[in-house]
């Protein structure tokens, strides 16, 4: 079997894949964007945000964790799936306290960019207004759990790339929250540094590098200039260059 001859079909586009690739890997490598928040090229996939749900026959699967297999007929960019993705994005908004107009991350935030991408015009669902703990103990890094979407990217980045294992997610249901792997539970007692991948991978404003928030003015930030689709494809290409 020659790997190069194996293809999957996403929305009528034939896409090659190699053994071991997920649908997401193959799609991004071929320049086909599947919306995602908890996936990041180079980190093991998790499958928690569910934005990358695609359909194969009458089955829904998360593209980031489903293996690509020859002959798959996959629906991705359909009105139904994008409506579901919008609803999931709205869920992430109401579950936390997302204060876009006053958030340092505005313009650099993937959740916000995803909302624009999917044409989200309101929260739709009632707000939860959760009370979540803020940790400002670290001199260089702020942890505001109010804005956390539990994507687990910092957990994986810290464990698998930084090799520091600073974070974990604890608690069930809406009680789920990010915890710090120190006796005090405070970030200051962890070995985390602002140069760590974990400090820079947060898609939202939950982990912020202090004193950097407004170096780039609003209006000139990442998603002010490019769409989340372009950035998603760019991140994949960048990871491939690293290899």
């Amino acid at each position: 079997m020659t790997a190069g001859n194996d293809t999957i079909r996403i929305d009528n586009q034939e896409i090659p894949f190699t053994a071991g690739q997920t649908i997401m890997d193959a799609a991004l490598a071929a320049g086909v964007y599947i919306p995602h928040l908890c996936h990041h090229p180079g980190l093991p996939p998790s499958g928690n945000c569910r934005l990358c749900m695609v359909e194969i026959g009458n089955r829904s699967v998360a593209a980031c964790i489903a293996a690509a297999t020859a002959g798959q007929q996959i629906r991705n960019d359909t009105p139904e799936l994008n409506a579901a993705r919008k609803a999931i994005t709205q869920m992430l908004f109401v579950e936390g306290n997302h204060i876009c107009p006053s958030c340092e991350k505005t313009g650099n935030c993937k959740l916000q960019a995803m909302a624009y991408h999917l044409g989200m015009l309101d929260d739709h669902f009632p707000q939860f207004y959760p009370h979540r703990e803020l940790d400002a103990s670290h001199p260089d890094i702020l942890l505001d759990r109010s804005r956390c979407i539990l994507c687990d990217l910092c957990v994986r980045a810290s464990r698998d790339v930084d090799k520091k294992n600073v974070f974990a997610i604890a608690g069930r249901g809406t009680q789920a929250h990010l915890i710090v792997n120190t006796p005090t539970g405070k970030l200051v007692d962890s070995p985390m540094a602002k140069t760590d991948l974990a400090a820079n991978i947060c898609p939202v404003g939950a982990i912020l590098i202090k004193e950097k928030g407004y170096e780039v003015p609003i209006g000139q930030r990442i998603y002010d200039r490019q769409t989340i689709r372009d950035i998603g494809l760019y991140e994949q290409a960048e990871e491939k260059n690293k290899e």
Partner: protein
Amino acid sequence: MLHRLHAIQRDCLHISRESIQQVAQEFDLPIAQVAAVVAFHSFFHTRPRGRFDILFSNCTSCGYLSGGQDLLQLLCLQLQVTPGETRADGLVSIDETSCIGMCDQGPSLLINGLPITHLNDNKVVQLAQLIALETPLPDWPANWFDIHHTVHRRDWLLSGSPVPREIMLKALDIGRDNTLAILLQSGLRGRGGAGFATGRKWQLCREAPGDTRYVVCNADEGEPGTFKDRMLLTTYAENLFAGMALCAFVIGATQGFVYLRAEYHYLLESLQETLQSCRRHGLLGNRILGHSDFDFDITLIVGAGAYICGEESALIESLEGKPGIPRIRPPFPVTHGYLGQPTVVNNVETFIAAAHIVHSGNETFRTTGTASSTGTKILSISGDCALPGIYEYPFGVRIRQILDDCGAQNVQAMQIGGPAGTLLNPAEFGRTLAFDDVSSGGSLLIFGPQRDLLTIHRNFARFFAHESCGFCTPCRVGTQLIQKELDTIAEGRGSAYTIVELQQLARLVQQQSHCGLGHTAANHVLEGLHKFPLTFSSRLQPQFTARFDLDQALASARHITHRDDSAAHLSND
């Protein structure tokens, strides 16, 4: 590690930050992992519970409301306790928990892990007095703690008696391949509900590459309304262990686990004794019945109050000392299970049935039931019927027959397979119990004419919102939103739009979630909307009504501004 945490919770009434640190050190684990396990389970607490720690079941059959009055509220009033909190003097804490598997025993609670059943107002008042006087539990009326298993109908499985020695001798006599062949031919399918062919599972596990293999018994009977494993673990534990040993014999495992739900902690002692007796009789341990290359033993692990741990990959995570978050599947446990090794996970009833099939041959089994659902199924029947209890039926039995047998009259609706299962209306009572018709892990809840089905839906919705593991967005947030929408309708604030919302939400949760919990959590809503539309539509308001309480919405503003004057209130009219 779960046992260590249970011991700390019992002795210190909570698990402090220091204890978490200590356990992490003992087991050489990250502190965050231990903290995450503590936070994941309902029976572990980071703040001290009362010396009398009471958990009322909130199930529709054994819950504190099931007797027609609010017993939790009554006990809280008697003892001046706020639900969910520990009284200032540390004497008592009162809270609620998901179904504790006492559905045939009337309203029930757990006190320091021990079940008390058949509750009524009178008993609750006595209970309050015993607590107020700090009477030690051993001095309480002993019959309060009695659990009687009522088996109303016995068939192929429950007519047999525990014969672990004969079962093992037979298997050793015919050998591994023939034992597996008997199972494959029997058509036995997993009794947990999903119905995967048991013989095939064992075969796949045997063939999967791995250094070692494991046998796991899922005794995390958490589906509200099911309690048949409680009886099986009491009466047929020897056959269960023999069934597990058979599996070990077939797949080549030396280690097995029984993952027992925390609500059945009270069974632990007797299960340990049975294990010991099996070891003494050479049925477990090294060189089983003198067979030189057959070593197998079983360890009992007690869960800590998390419904999701009944999902096989979540159960394995929990066994490994991690929070019970379902894994990405595939790979399935049968190839990558406990510690990444091939693992068979079967339900209590499945192992016992397997043992019985091997012992008595598969002839009777194969000819009982239907072509695709062979054998019998043990049901836990509760709710509005004269004879709640345990019933064993051949597959293919009609629902109507079951209802007649348990003395259920004028049934309005029934829920089969627990809140995650199927809601049936009377027009469907001609359907049959089978994997390809009405499938069930064992729970059968009956709702009589006087029941308010919306209350049932709200109960189920609350259950899922509480038990969602929180891993994926649609289930974590969606189950909460479904609960809110149902509450909105119940409070008389619903409109036709609320129903559309509910339907869309339910579909989203069903289609986009990560695991079986999410896939099934909204079934009851979708089926309710389809089969009993009046449950919802009869509560809708004909005129415009705000979807929330305007005055209530100002409460936090009043609190912050220290105001309570009339200008700080809004009229809802």
